[in-house]
């Protein structure tokens, strides 16, 4: 942050004093932002306004005869009083927390490995990215096939080493009990998105300035110290980006849940997004579904905002 202050004061001295220099400098930069904002306002603004508006209505999209009438926060009340909603929030939170934290740690380790790889890096990275590049629906189908109790490769080998199977650690099919089903979903998500995480962190690693490391080498810092006190804080930004995007994604997870467990066993893997999908596109109770979506979205925003401000502050302090 010190370098920034320096350049500002440097600027102040270089440029001729102009009292609107701030504003004049800002205008073109605002112009940079404008296209994207306008674009999003048009193409996301209307749908979002529709979303909010219809969350305040009692409406069955598939039944026009019922009409849609304004019930204010009625839908929100129903959702907040619904047991299955809170259960889905819990399931989503557990899933997101587990998946993202594992992806972060794993991604960081792999990024470090890749950074220090001295041969075959190009092909390695291209291949490693495949899981993140596959269609989510295909990933879901693939893992459903592999996790199948009778015909799945994963189940077969787990039975071979007695982790699964009647005489094994887990005496029931993976997808037949709530915790193992959820764990299977987490494993699938980790497999799918760790490469993505690793790539972002790797790009971040590659963009790090050399000076701090040179200085550390001069000071005789150990590998470990270098990592914790220089690399990690500098990677702060990249990690935050990756983290927030993954959290947003994990809280919206639908494809793999839909395909692998369908919410089962019972309702134990019904995530928030799956619930709103069932309500909104299965039962077509759009008012309720939208209310639920907005509630979950608000929660996601709050969580992300907290993480963002917390981690950004730590990075700033470094």
């Amino acid at each position, binding site marked *: 942050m010190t*370098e*920034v202050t320096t350049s500002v004061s440097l*600027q102040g001295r*270089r440029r001729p004093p102009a009292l609107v220099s701030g504003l004049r400098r800002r205008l073109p*930069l605002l112009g*940079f*932002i404008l*296209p*994207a904002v306008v*674009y*999003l306002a048009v*193409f*996301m603004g209307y749908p*979002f306004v*529709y979303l909010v508006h219809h969350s305040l209505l009692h409406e069955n999209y598939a039944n026009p005869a019922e009409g849609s009438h304004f019930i204010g926060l009625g839908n929100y009340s129903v959702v907040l009083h619904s047991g299955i909603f809170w259960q889905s929030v819990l399931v989503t939170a557990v899933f997101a927390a587990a998946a993202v934290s594992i992806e972060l740690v794993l991604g960081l380790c792999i990024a*470090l*490995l*890749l950074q220090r790889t001295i041969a*075959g*890096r*190009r*092909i*390695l*990275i*291209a*291949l*490693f*990215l*495949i899981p993140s*590049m*596959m*269609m*989510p629906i*295909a990933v879901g*189908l*693939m*893992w459903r*096939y592999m996790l199948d109790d009778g*015909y799945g490769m994963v189940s077969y*080998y787990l039975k071979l080493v007695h982790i699964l199977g009647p005489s094994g650690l887990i005496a029931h099919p993976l997808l037949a009990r709530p915790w193992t089903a959820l764990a299977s979903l987490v494993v699938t998500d980790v497999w799918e998105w*760790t490469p993505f995480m690793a790539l972002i962190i790797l*790009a971040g690693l*590659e*963009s*790090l300035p*050399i000076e701090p490391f040179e200085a550390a080498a001069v000071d005789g810092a150990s590998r470990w110290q270098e990592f914790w006190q220089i690399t990690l804080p500098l990677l702060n*930004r*990249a990690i935050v980006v990756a983290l*927030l*995007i993954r959290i*947003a994604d994990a809280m919206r997870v*639908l494809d793999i849940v839909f395909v692998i467990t369908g919410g089962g066993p019972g309702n134990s893997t019904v995530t928030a997004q799956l619930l*709103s999908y069932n309500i*909104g596109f299965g039962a077509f109770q759009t008012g309720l*579904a*939208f209310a639920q*979506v907005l509630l979950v*979205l608000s929660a996601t*925003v709050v969580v*992300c905002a907290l993480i963002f401000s917390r981690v950004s502050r730590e990075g700033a302090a470094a």
Partner: protein
Amino acid sequence: MGRWLPTLGAFVVVAIFLIPVLWTIETSLKTRIAAWTMPPQWVFRPSLENYRAVLFDHGFITYLKNSLIVAVGATAVALTLGSLAAYGLERNRFRGKQALFFVFLFAYMVPEMAIALPAYLLAVRFHAIDTYWVLIAMHATFATAFATWMLRGFFADVPREVEECALADGCTRWGAFFRVALPLAAPGLVATAVFCLIFSWNDFPYALVLSTLHVETLPVAVGQLKTPAGTAWGQIMAVTVIAFTPTVIFAFVVQRWLVRGLSFGAVK
């Protein structure tokens, strides 16, 4: 020898991650009986029947083309709007900066399934259902949000001194952006492009709701193979392989940009 350890580790890790991919490829080459036979067969007589059926019987070449057009279009829009926005946001100092950033992340966080319904209604009103434009436009929304968010980090890492020098030398802000910041943030642009392409390529909700026949993309078309009378696993795996091959090739080609080390030492 210690130098080779990370390389070895990387190879091992990637190999483990690729086991399911190998399984996918093998399944795509199997007949239905073979696909379900236990114990899992790793060596068998391969057959290209699934690929033939998928490409020619089910017309997946068309779907590939559609996916490509939409993905490239959406990525182009997203990179343009996103890099401009990210640069503007990062280089600016004003109060609402963080808030505005958050608006972009927020746009990314809204679940597509929820937006899909109003988007459908809007598209119907403009007679835009089943056109490339509408799909590109909707894909570009979350792609732009994502791109802005991601590129912000990369622009932040571009040192201001370089631009300040350029500006002091008489460069305009646009020039500073285009000729200085952008090239320096190139690895970020490439990484972002790769993921924008992937997100668009793999999107399901918008593609489902906004396409009928002519612009049906791969993810929607894959659903064809998940039939009420049984899932054609081999064919689905074949489509999956066909779908990720171009993205892998593309990622391989742009490697150079992705991981090129930046030496700021020289810049100073």
